[in-house]
């Protein structure tokens, strides 16, 4: 079990900050949703938490330890990432891509053994990608690749999982499958999960807590009903009166309708 903490951190690229002095905590067993408009810095948070970019100021701890003091291979055993539609080398098969998730667990002179291969197979079963195993990744659709990347992070056997728009390219059935799977991992295996999500309805339905980011800072934070409110959605997204209550479970739900032209209204 590992908890992720961002403490008064300023994040960005080449010293131009995207997020200023933000605080964020994710605890074991929790699925936290990171929401906010395009370009607000959701991916930046994920890159900082996987130490792909350095902080401009502040600090990040993983399981209480400063992220800069954790060797890369050890960090990759603690924190796994599902990136947002990355380029994959076309010459590798789906199975080989999934198997690469074992990399942090293998020493320089080791190769994947039967256990690694059966872990990869299990992960592909869980993500319904077994039938793709021998296909080259350039033949796969965006949604299939997304599912493969989730299989890869399962194979990595990390205690924390960061997901960057994990449902962006999936049909609605797969969206539910993948988020159900994440939900189950959090509850049963006490995985620490942080997911950047665009779809506010999925965020509301699946996340224990939401963090709404806007204009370089945390705009709101809390359980979905505290964060997805008409006021917040209007201020951050400029969409008015679109928050309703889910008829079955009472969680906030977005229903959109076209913006009415002002001349019609008057």
């Amino acid at each position, binding site marked *: 079990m590992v908890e992720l903490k961002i403490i008064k951190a300023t994040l960005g690229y080449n010293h131009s900050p995207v997020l200023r002095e933000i605080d964020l905590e994710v605890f074991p067993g929790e699925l936290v949703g990171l929401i906010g408009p395009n370009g607000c810095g959701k991916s930046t948070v994920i890159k900082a938490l*996987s130490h792909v970019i350095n902080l401009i100021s502040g600090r990040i701890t993983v399981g209480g330890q400063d992220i800069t003091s954790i060797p890369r291979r*050890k960090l990759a055993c603690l924190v796994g990432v599902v990136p947002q539609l990355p380029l994959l080398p076309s010459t*590798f098969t789906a199975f080989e891509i999934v198997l690469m998730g074992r*990399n942090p667990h293998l020493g*320089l002179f080791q190769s994947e053994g039967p256990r690694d291969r*059966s872990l990869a197979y299990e992960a592909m079963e869980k993500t319904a990608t077994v039938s793709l195993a021998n296909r*080259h990744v*350039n033949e796969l659709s965006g949604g299939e690749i997304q599912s493969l990347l989730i299989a890869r992070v399962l194979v990595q056997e990390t205690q924390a999982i960061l997901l960057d728009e994990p449902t962006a390219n999936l049909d609605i059935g797969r969206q539910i499958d993948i988020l159900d799977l994440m939900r189950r991992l959090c509850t049963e295996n006490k995985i620490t999960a942080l997911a950047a999500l665009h779809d506010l309805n999925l965020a509301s339905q699946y996340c224990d807590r939401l963090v709404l980011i806007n204009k370089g800072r945390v705009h709101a934070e809390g359980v979905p009903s505290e964060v997805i409110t008409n006021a917040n959605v209007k201020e951050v997204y400029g969409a008015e009166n679109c928050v309703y209550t889910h008829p079955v479970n009472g969680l906030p739900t977005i229903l959109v309708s076209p913006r009415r032209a002002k001349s019609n209204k008057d």
Partner: protein
Amino acid sequence: MVESHLIVQPAGNLMPGRRVRLYGLLGLGVLLVLIIALAASIGSVAIPLTTTFSILADKLPFVDISPTWTNAMATVILEIRLPRVILAGLVGIALAIAGATYQGLFRNPLADPYLIGVAQGASLGAIIGFLLPAAWQVPGFGLIPLLAFTGALLSTATVYLLARVGKTLPVTTLILAGVALGALLGSVVSYLIISSGDKMHGIIFWLMGSFSLSQWSEVRIVLPYVAVGTAVILIFARIINVMQLDEEQAQQLGVNVERIKLILLAAATLITAASVSFVGTIGFVGIIIPHAVRLIWGADYRFLLPLSVLTGAIFMILTDLLARTVLSPAEIPIGVITAICGAPFFLYLLRRRKKAIF
């Protein structure tokens, strides 16, 4: 555990082609031994292949064959032809594995061992060696390889320093810096060639590569570089696979990308520099051999690298055999042969296989 035993079976079938690649390694290994013997037996004095084999086998530890050959034959094989064959093999190994490594590091199919300034630096060093007064030439293997090696390392180091951005080494910057410095050095090389007068012929021959002056002393210098460099690169084969994703994903999978880039660049550059210093800037091998291997056996670096090593050695020994026999006693520069023989074969492979290869 019973469950996981059940799923090991299907998972075992999820990696097709593994056996084909293992047979490929074995077959190429045997072929390499045969080609070494064949190349040693062919020349101005023809020595039967069986005799060549006996002479070579006699030199192995624990093997003792009663001589059916003359001392002269043994000298021709062991002192004249074998060092040349072995050096050709080593250079083939060096160029093929360095090419495959650069292609993997840069994730660029056009990368070759000369991409970041090794060849132009070596050429400039060698030409300076040619233009120095004859009195300066050191006895032994001479000043030219030493200057070529120094030139190769200096130009690569310059490219490296120019391409650094903070603590990182972005591969795009590295390629661009390499191309730019290469062009600069290349123009100096061109100017020196046209103003070199009667030394022009020797310089151009050197640039196109030749094994004609190979001796054991040169093998002894090149061998450690190629052996250590190749071993280092082979150790990182699985990591190079992971680096085919992209740097960000590789880091998130636990690869210390910057450190590994440095190690692999150093290894590939040193073996390339050591090779070209003695035999000149032989083109085409470093880019084509890894691609040919990819076309036949796939892109997994754990097989691609060792298969390229064997294929590179075989290809270089065969092309050198052609270079010294086709117009015998005259020699054709090896760079001419590598392209004439290699290009059509490569194009054939390319047409046969329509799948993505890189």
